[in-house]
């Protein structure tokens, strides 16, 4: 069977390349405002007429010049040097009709490679609305390549593109006259000189032009010092020919001259000049004084809104899960299966679902602000500040998303252009106060911090402590990022490019699509792991069981039933006995033994084995801790809720009668929770996004150690 033809989809960032790709293949993928959303290599199958073709979506790039292995991928794929992909039969270049110059620059490089190139002129509707009067037919003649005008997000022009691609598949490519003939000539000579397997001519050209680039590195890597010497001689000679202008400057100048000629001939409007940003809204948000004020106001509004909207829903959901669990507990026969069903599966699902409201609200607001253009301005504003700790303005949105859930937030760091800054952002995100920390905070603060009000009741100590924990997380993130950049990722940051979209009303459909994608990431990526962790923890807390304890409690139950005066009284006492039996069995179980074994480790933080066991149970997913505490502290029924658990915690004593939960211990526990990386899904996503398990393990060890140290210091200082 002959192989399917391959079409490589190439384009600058933000040209709607992924949308065109999705239109052709029918896959769905997120498109965003920032450059570089598409860093994955994605392939799909498209139907063209009666044949099927493979499409490969390349990362968005402005140029074939590469500064690292990632950007080198583009030329590799186009030249058929990428593993697992044949040489493409056609290159589809997706161009942004509203920013044609940059796209045509890439086209000018691509047309020299000898492959048939088709141009998809995307965002045609916006360009027309902006008054662009470019004649597409003339442009096609000028660039001697078929041009398909289209509006991919509305599906307009897709049919035309399909037929152009179908036609091109039958054609042979013609390479255009190179813009840098001197370099081509030198590259041919150099290629002949090189020993070993000859690199593609285009790669040699790039090696000559791009000082310090990926292809220079590869050439020198293969040819050694001799190749470096030859390369430098060639560069010196060519540079002299060009009046001491660097080759890359000359290339850019010539290509842009060519592009401007094409555009001029096609009747494109010349480059418009920009007024300084004068709209009142622009002035307000970018003013040195009002800008930060607006920023702080917007951010506090976001958090206030999320808190106010999500809290009642979260309460309702957790009450629902507890009530149904309690209801089922009474009706199901006692035993391992019903315990697994209620304490393992049902509460595991509940532990996931309860965070959905907060995640929806925070991401909805972040995406709204992103799509209306404010986030770009906020990133612009925050760049200087974030750079102090080795981050970048582009880290801002991922960091903010970290307050909902670290998993989608870490995935969102792909927008951070600079690799070092991106890694530092990934390290900082798990310290942002994610929604899963809030139940623990709420329980401990309301239970152990005395209520106090300042300024006539305007400021509440509880709220202040919560705010303090948020600030602590942010500070921890800043310090972690700083240390990461100082220790593991030294070196100057890469360049920073950001395009600021104009202010506009977001499209509700696009918004809901993006929101669904984020929530789906949480449910599938984090949710499944959280639920599985709940089940594991259930098994650890259930097995092994002691027959002695079971027999003892069976006896005590019988006594209570015999002595029962009224149905109510005995019912309550039976429930208490059941809870106590569960607690006793948990102490006997693996989890209880681990808690006891590990107690000495957490002794300096003032924790007894019960707290230690609960925290250990929380390591795979921190939200599990409350459920486990409920069992450890023999909470009668889950329906007693936080208030019941609070009382039990307050009543908890050391063997010598001192209370376990003192203010100092609670504060230490809170601080521990602020820093600890207790989330398997976060560790997994760090490993995935950094492509290195060392980073994931390092982050876990570092944050756990830091949490222990900070918790210990807090406890010792406060005690």
């Amino acid at each position, binding site marked *: 069977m002959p192989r399917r033809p391959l079409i490589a989809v190439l384009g600058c960032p933000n040209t709607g390349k992924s949308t065109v790709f999705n239109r052709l293949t029918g896959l769905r993928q997120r498109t965003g405002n920032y450059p570089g959303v598409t860093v994955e290599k994605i392939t799909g199958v498209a139907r063209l007429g009666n044949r099927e073709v493979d499409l490969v979506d390349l990362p968005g790039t402005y140029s074939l010049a590469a500064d690292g292995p990632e950007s080198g991928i583009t030329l590799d794929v186009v030249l058929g040097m990428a593993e697992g992909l044949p040489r493409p039969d056609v290159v589809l270049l997706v161009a942004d009709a509203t920013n044609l110059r*940059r796209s045509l620059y890439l086209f000018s490089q691509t047309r020299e490679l000898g492959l048939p190139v088709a141009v998809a002129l995307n965002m045609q509707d916006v360009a027309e609305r902006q008054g662009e009067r470019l004649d597409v037919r003339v442009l096609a003649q000028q660039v001697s390549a078929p041009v398909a005008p289209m509006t991919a997000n509305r599906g307009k022009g897709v049919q035309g593109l399909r037929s152009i691609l179908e036609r091109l598949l039958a054609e042979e490519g013609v390479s255009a006259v190179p813009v840098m003939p001197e370099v081509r000539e030198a590259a041919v000579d150099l290629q002949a000189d090189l020993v070993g397997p000859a690199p593609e001519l285009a790669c040699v050209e790039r090696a000559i032009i791009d000082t310090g680039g990926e292809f220079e590195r590869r050439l020198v890597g293969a040819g050694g010092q001799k190749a470096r010497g030859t390369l430098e001689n060639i560069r010196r000679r060519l540079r002299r020919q060009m009046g001491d202008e660097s080759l*890359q400057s000359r290339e850019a100048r010539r290509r842009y001259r060519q592009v401007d000629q094409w555009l001029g001939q096609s009747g494109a409007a010349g*480059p418009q000049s920009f007024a300084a940003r004068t709209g009142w809204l622009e002035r307000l948000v970018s003013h*040195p004084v009002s800008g930060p004020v607006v920023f702080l106001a917007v951010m506090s509004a976001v958090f206030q809104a999320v808190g106010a909207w999500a809290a009642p829903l979260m309460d309702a959901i957790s009450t629902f899960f507890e009530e149904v669990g309690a209801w089922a507990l009474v009706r199901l026969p006692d035993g391992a299966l019903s315990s697994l069903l209620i304490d393992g599966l049902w509460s595991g699902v509940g532990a996931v679902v309860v965070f959905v409201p907060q995640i929806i609200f925070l991401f909805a607001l972040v995406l709204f602000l992103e799509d209306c253009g404010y986030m770009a301005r906020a990133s612009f504003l925050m760049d200087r500040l974030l750079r102090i700790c080795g981050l970048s303005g582009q880290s801002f949105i991922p960091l903010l998303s970290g307050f909902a859930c670290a998993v989608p937030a870490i995935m969102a760091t792909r927008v951070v252009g600079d690799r070092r800054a991106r890694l530092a952002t990934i390290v900082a995100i798990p310290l942002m106060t994610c929604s899963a920390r809030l139940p623990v905070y709420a329980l401990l603060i309301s239970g152990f911090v005395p209520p106090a009000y300042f300024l006539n009741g305007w400021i509440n100590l509880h709220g202040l402590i919560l705010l303090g924990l948020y600030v602590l997380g942010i500070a921890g993130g800043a310090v972690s990022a700083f240390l990461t950049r100082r220790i593991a990722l030294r070196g100057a940051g890469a*360049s920073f490019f950001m395009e600021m979209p104009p202010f506009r009303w977001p499209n509700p459909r696009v918004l809901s699509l993006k929101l669904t994608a984020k929530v789906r990431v949480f449910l599938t990526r984090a949710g499944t792991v959280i639920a599985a962790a709940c089940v594991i923890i259930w098994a650890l807390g259930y097995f092994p069981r002691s027959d002695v304890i079971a027999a003892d409690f069976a006896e005590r139950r019988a006594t209570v039933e015999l002595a029962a005066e009224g149905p109510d009284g005995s019912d309550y006492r039976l429930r208490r006995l059941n809870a106590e039996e569960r607690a006793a069995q948990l102490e006997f179980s693996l989890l209880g033994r681990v808690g006891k074994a590990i107690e000495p480790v957490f002794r300096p933080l003032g924790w007894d084995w019960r707290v230690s066991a609960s925290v250990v149970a929380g390591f795979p997913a921190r939200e599990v801790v409350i459920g486990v505490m409920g069992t450890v502290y023999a909470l009668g029924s889950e329906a007693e809720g936080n208030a019941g658990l609070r009382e039990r915690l307050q009543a908890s004593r050391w063997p010598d009668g001192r209370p376990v939960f003192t203010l100092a211990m609670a504060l230490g526990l809170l601080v521990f929770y602020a820093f600890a990386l207790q989330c398997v899904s976060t560790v997994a996503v760090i490993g995935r996004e950094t492509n290195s398990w060392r980073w994931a393990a390092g982050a876990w060890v570092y944050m756990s150690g830091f949490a222990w140290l900070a918790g210990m210091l807090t406890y010792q200082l406060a005690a």
Partner: protein
Amino acid sequence: MLDSQSAFASVSLTLTREIGLDELPTGHGSEIRAVTGDGQVSRELLTLGLVPGVHVQVLRRGIGGDPLEIAAGGHPLCLRRDQTRMIRVLAPIEET
């Protein structure tokens, strides 16, 4: 603004002063003379159309003058001050 540009044309090139783009006041524009350096950073700038001969304008500045939003070839772009320093432009005539 227009006057200063036409005044440029009459001044011979050897007399004009080159400054970094970061020294241009907000709202002002000038012509790129060169992009210094021969490496990744200057390559990226050139690729984005910041090539000699193009008119460039400073649109806004962040707090403390960093980063900057500029427009060249009809398109706005945010850059850090270190990057804009590599873009050498003609000093506006009214400054001297």
